[in-house]
């Protein structure tokens, strides 16, 4: 019944939107930056899952044999033929960087400027080396093995398309993360957070970095090991 509705549908226009949403109530008791980072990461989860689902779909549907990742990414080091070794090293680099990042967050909350910055710089170096190894991996695949997004001599054409899309997008995230962490490390070193007390910015950057590592866990399992 119309008279039971206390507020008419449209009688106070735009201010009503603000009224309805700003109930002076706080749902998440965390700094706003952290909340926004989490929401961004949830949306990023959807993006990466869409890529991985697309990969699953084309891999199930293809009638061509799928290239054996274990052999495609093998390297011969010191006279030994090691399957998937480059990817294993990249995985360990990223996990180590996640560990140093966790340390950085921990030192940040202890207000230890120097140790926080050191751990951040270590994380940046490990992240940059990951991107470097990925560049090497791509070069090897494109130049030596002739893998292209539209086809490759090893088997199913979809291998190249999904590989470049998924690892490319992840590599872009790592690169962006390296730049992001460099900005944060500069602020830590400059003492910005000692002045304004916003050491949680290190934790927020940490969330992003751990997420990049998290995505790699899925890519490593589903693309390289499957």
């Amino acid at each position, binding site marked *: 019944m119309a008279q039971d509705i206390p507020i008419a549908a449209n009688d106070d226009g735009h201010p009503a939107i603000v009224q309805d949403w700003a109930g002076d109530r706080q*749902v*998440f*008791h*965390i*700094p706003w930056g952290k*909340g926004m980072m*989490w929401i961004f*990461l*949830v949306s990023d*989860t*959807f993006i990466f*899952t*869409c890529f991985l*689902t*697309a990969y*699953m*779909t*084309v*891999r*199930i*549907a*293809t*009638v061509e044999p799928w290239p054996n990742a*274990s052999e495609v990414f093998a390297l011969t080091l010191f006279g030994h033929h090691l*399957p*998937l070794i480059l990817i*294993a090293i990249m*995985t*360990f680099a990223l*996990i*180590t960087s*996640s*560990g140093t*990042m*966790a*340390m950085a*967050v*921990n030192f940040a*909350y*202890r207000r230890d400027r120097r140790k926080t910055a050191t751990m951040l710089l270590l994380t940046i170096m490990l992240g940059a080396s990951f991107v470097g190894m990925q560049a090497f991996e791509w070069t090897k695949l494109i130049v030596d093995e002739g893998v292209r997004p539209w086809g490759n001599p090893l088997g199913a054409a979809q291998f190249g398309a999904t590989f470049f899309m998924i690892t490319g997008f992840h590599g872009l995230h790592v690169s962006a993360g390296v730049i992001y962490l460099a900005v944060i490390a500069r602020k830590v070193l400059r003492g910005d957070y000692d002045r304004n*007390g*916003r*050491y*949680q910015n290190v*934790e927020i950057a*940490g*969330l992003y970095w*751990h*997420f990049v*590592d*998290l995505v790699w*866990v*899925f890519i*490593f*399992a*589903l693309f390289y*090991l*499957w």
Partner: protein
Amino acid sequence: MAQAGQQHPIGIYLKVWVLLFILSAFSYTVDILHLEGYLRWSLILLLMVLKAGLIVAVFMHMMWERLALVYTILLPPLCLLVLVALMAVEADYTFITRGLFFLPAE
């Protein structure tokens, strides 16, 4: 103190770190040993879920967050499982159709 934030003993980070190394080594071993079929796939998925769980729970502090935030973050991605299930069925159908139409019948 304006913002207490997430403060936990360093020990737990180090333990999780070591655990992630060990789990990754196991993942790699699955490949080295050339395990095949369901054993390989279940081990890969199990190790993947364990590693992802540790990263989210400890490194991303999810186990210390309030439930309102935990549910907001962790429940929406469950929709993706529906997408994965739908696409798996669809891909199977595509595969069978390709077999019927494009492979020589002899």
